[in-house]
């Protein structure tokens, strides 16, 4: 009895999670614009999607900003994490408390704070301000990923490297960084994911026609239901599904090894 109830409950929850997405996917193939009728199977919304200039621009900016911000924040974050690791406790705690503010603060406060900063300094909102904003909220997550790995390092191993003749810089390159590599990669992936998906902070810090996918969807959605968004949703779902399947395959392969 317990089993059946559990299974039913879980199924309901999963249904709740997937129903809206399923609806989007199905209606992306609906020839009729209205929700009610099924006008026939069609790919036309997908074609319209590919022709849509705004969406293509948005996609371009989304990916560019995400990759650039993720790369820069991973480099800066990793170097800073190494610096933080070598600090005395009190200073380290102060540093980290400030560092984690963007994570704790609601997006809207971070976004508005940065907007005020840029406008007060008379900087025009656009690509660079959006990039700066992304880097600002990405770096703390990189540090969050890398610092624990640094703390797990066996101190003797770094001493052994010095003992064998390595300068601190050589030891950093050949011994420390290879050992914290998983943390660095995770940090990059988290930063990338956050940037790809960001809405609120980007919304407040961009301008001059620079936009990203989330902002684009927001403006389209405010105008009402649009089948092109449905097509976009299906495509994004396919990409995400593909990514997750690849990740799943890789982790199960690694476990088997």
């Amino acid at each position: 009895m317990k089993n059946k109830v559990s299974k039913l409950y879980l199924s309901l929850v999963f249904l709740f999670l997937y129903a809206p997405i399923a609806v989007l996917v199905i209606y992306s193939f609906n020839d009729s614009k209205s929700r009610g009728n099924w006008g026939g199977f069609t790919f036309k919304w997908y074609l319209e999607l590919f022709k849509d200039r705004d969406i293509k621009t948005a996609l371009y900016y989304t990916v560019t900003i995400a990759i650039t911000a993720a790369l820069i924040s991973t480099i800066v974050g990793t170097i800073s994490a190494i610096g933080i690791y070598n600090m005395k406790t009190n200073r380290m705690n102060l540093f980290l408390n400030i560092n984690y503010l963007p994570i704790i603060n609601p997006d809207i406060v971070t976004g508005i704070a940065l907007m005020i900063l840029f406008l007060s300094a008379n900087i025009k909102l656009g690509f660079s301000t959006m990039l700066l904003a992304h880097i600002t909220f990405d770096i703390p997550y990189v540090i969050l990923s890398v610092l624990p790995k640094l703390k797990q390092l066996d101190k003797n191993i770094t001493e052994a490297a010095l003992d064998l003749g390595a300068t601190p810089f050589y030891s950093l390159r050949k011994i420390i960084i290879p050992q914290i590599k998983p943390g660095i990669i995770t940090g990059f992936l988290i930063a990338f994911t956050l940037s790809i998906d960001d809405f609120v902070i980007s919304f407040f810090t961009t301008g001059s026609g620079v936009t990203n996918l989330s902002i684009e969807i927001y403006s389209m959605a405010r105008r009402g239901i649009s089948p092109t968004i449905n097509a976009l949703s299906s495509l994004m779902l396919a990409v995400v599904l593909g990514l997750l399947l690849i990740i799943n395959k890789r982790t199960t392969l690694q476990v088997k090894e």
Partner: protein
Amino acid sequence: MNSKSKYLAYPYSIWMIIFILFPLFLIFLYSITLRNANEIKTITFTFENFAKFFNPIYINVLIRSISIAALSTIICLFIGYPVAYLLTRINEENKGLLILLFILPMWMNMLLRTYAWMTILGNTGLINSFLSFLNLPKINLLYNNNAVILGMVYNFLPFMVFPIYTALNKMDRSLIEAADDLGADSFTIFRKVIFPLSLPGVISGLVMVFMPAVSTFVIPRLLGGGKNILIGNLIEKLFLVTRDWNFGAALSMIILIIIFISIKILNVLNIDKESGISL
């Protein structure tokens, strides 16, 4: 190596001052000054912006935001706790797959997920089209508080499930067996062993749902319509439409205070878990 390496963090510390601390300071500054403070000599410090807030209209917005956020959080807790619990009970082979399936919607863009409900709840949406098909009158499902709550629960449920799942997963199974062995029935085991040990996860979940819920403006905007706005919408309007930065800044400060208070309260509850406090 140690003495020199700490300087590696100094460039970023300058970044933090410019892009984290200073902007927050600017918000604070705007919140306690008035609009015409363009020349330095006309800066007057005032609490007028905060006083403005104590107007029934705005207080209502705040109360509505907190109650909707709190309600959504509680709903997430009641739906999400069993989900987390059941996920820990699945056997190893299926566990990975199910967790993956649970994560998948999270990876979809948040706006798309919110928009999805528009297509279901709207007047020309799925449900109402179905009702018209049956010649039944349409129901106003969209553009009200309930739609907003639905949107919040839908978007933030995973944030409740995962901390609880992690806490439950880490739990030592032998504790349950010991309680069972000592004669406790299932309900008692849950009440006295499982729930208290999962409390840190519950606290995390509550924080991770309440915070974005109380400050979001996307969900109320798309699903709540223009009428019943929440504090996030109000802030957005003040900065982008009305351009009353000072009042907007004051409201931002108020949101920050609310969030820090809620974190403090929840942390206090967490510390008391040893003495068996119940939520």
